């Protein structure tokens, strides 16, 4: 955490120094609205009549772009051209379970959300705002709740291989190849790692010596090693993937962090011993009335711990992406010679910070998981004041 302080302070200071420039630039954007094209009218004519109007000015377009980036999507688009409405990328398979029927088709049918896809007599459209698939009528109308703004259309259960699924599969395959090659290199090279896996061997040893053994204990850490190592590298790889220009945002996706935290929650509570439950429901070493008060608090803690894991990872990565993309977008908002170097410098500094965050968050997630496992299997009795 100490390492974080300096760059953070630096970035905040730079940010503050640039604030006047930003407010000045805003006016410029307003006057530059003439440049905005009407390409989206074509896109909007399909199914968005009922929805909010398409963003037209540059600032809201950037906002929408960033908003879409952090969401999951049904196709893997690497870049797009606003002038022509073209995208470069590839479609992904859409798998829906609706009306007890399996619908499988390519996301190319949606034309990047601009058209309605038909499968087995049902019509489906992608909602522009949350990037999710809804069942619609043939023209693709999405009805929205007046108060909340959420669509009221029926949602099929969506098992699609989305961008996030592709990236976790890619991370899984990459991990599998790296670590099996590392495992094999030991036998070939007489107990010394060789090849690309060698870079990761110190991290493996670090997870064992600095995360697993101190938190879980010499006796039981071996049972959890596979999980801790997998989660560490999985989160790390996905965090790093998120920093590549591929536009992947897997660990900044709530569902992903939820499932990781969920597994930690399951493992913690399924492997917990009597001592752990004793500490929750009948805290030893405190007066009896206090025990009754403590029990619900402790029980709540069981759920709050993984919940905090989920939110911490999600928020860190999500916020990192938003800030990084906003800073990159400054380049387009400024439209002056100062914009690009400033934006580049800030984005560069922030990217370095994000790399640190990528490692740090992977470490923290693993560390806290190990801590919870350690608490669940602790044998000896502890003094009060420990939770």
């Amino acid at each position, binding site marked *: 955490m100490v390492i974080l302080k300096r760059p953070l302070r630096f970035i905040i200071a730079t940010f503050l120094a640039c604030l006047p420039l930003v407010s000045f630039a805003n006016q410029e954007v307003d006057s530059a609205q003439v440049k905005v094209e009407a390409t989206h009218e074509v896109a909007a004519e399909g199914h968005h009549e009922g929805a909010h109007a398409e963003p037209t000015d540059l600032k809201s377009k950037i906002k929408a772009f960033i908003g879409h980036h952090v*969401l*999951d999507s049904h196709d893997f688009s690497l870049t797009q051209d606003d002038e022509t409405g073209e995208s470069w990328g590839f479609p992904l398979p859409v*798998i829906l379970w609706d009306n007890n029927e399996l619908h499988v088709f390519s996301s190319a049918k949606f034309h990047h959300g601009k058209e309605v896809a038909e499968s087995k007599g049902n019509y489906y459209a992608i909602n522009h705002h*949350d990037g*999710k698939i809804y069942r619609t009528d043939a023209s693709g109308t999405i009805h929205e709740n007046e108060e*909340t703004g*959420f669509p009221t259309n029926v949602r099929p*259960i*969506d*098992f*699609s*291989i*989305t961008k*996030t*699924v592709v990236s*976790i*599969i890619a991370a*899984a395959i990459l*991990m*599998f190849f790296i*670590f*099996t090659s*590392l*495992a*094999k290199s*030991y*036998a070939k090279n007489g*107990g*010394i*790692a060789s090849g690309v896996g060698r870079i990761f*061997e110190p991290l*493996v*040893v670090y997870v*064992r010596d600095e995360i697993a053994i101190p938190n879980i204990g010499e006796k039981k850490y*071996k049972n959890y*090693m*596979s*999980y801790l*190592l*997998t989660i560490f590298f*999985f989160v790390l790889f996905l965090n790093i993937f998120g920093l590549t220009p591929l536009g992947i945002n897997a660990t900044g*996706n*709530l*569902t*992903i962090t*939820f*499932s*990781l935290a*969920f*597994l930690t929650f399951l493992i913690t509570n399924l492997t917990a011993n009597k001592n752990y439950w004793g500490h929750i429901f009948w805290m030893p070493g405190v007066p009896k009335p206090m025990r009754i008060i403590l029990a619900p608090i402790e029980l709540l803690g069981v759920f709050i711990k993984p919940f905090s894991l989920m939110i911490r990872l999600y928020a860190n990565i999500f916020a990192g992406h938003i800030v990084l993309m906003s800073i990159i977008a400054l380049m387009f908002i400024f439209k002056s010679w100062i914009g690009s170097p400033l934006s580049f410098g800030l984005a560069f500094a922030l990217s370095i910070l994000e790399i640190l965050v990528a490692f740090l968050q992977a470490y923290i997630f693993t560390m806290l998981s190990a801590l919870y496992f350690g608490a669940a299997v602790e044998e000896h009795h502890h003094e009060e004041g420990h939770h």
Partner: protein
Amino acid sequence: MEKLINQFEFGLFFWQVLIFVGLILLLKKFAWKPILDAVNEREEGIKNALESAENARKEMQNLQADNQRILNEARAERDAMLKEAREMKEKMIADAKGEAQAQGEKMIEQAKAAINSEKNAAMAELKLQVSTLSLSIAEKLLKDELSNTEAQTKLVEKMLGDVKLN
């Protein structure tokens, strides 16, 4: 909050759990177990190697101490031998001297005895010679006085009887 909950996607959750649990199991079998085993084994190996190096060092020290001791012993032994040899030499010289002296004395004794006996023999010879000579002298002397042979002989015998030759 509602927006967050709305972000939850069951399909994605399903894929994530499936892929992640599969990944854990696969990596456990094909990666983590062999990697951790290899690392442990290597660490054990390093520990053992360090230990045996330490042992070897100690052994070396012991060996050196032993060598020193043996060397000292050998040196002491050599000194003892040299001393013994020197003593022996002195003793031999002393012995030889004593013997030579004894021998010399003995030889001197013998020579003295021989000289004595030779002297006695020479004396006897001398006596004989003297008696013969004196007899012949007396004969020659007395030949002239043969007239009085009887008286003369008596005289001579009387004289001879008086002379006690030793």
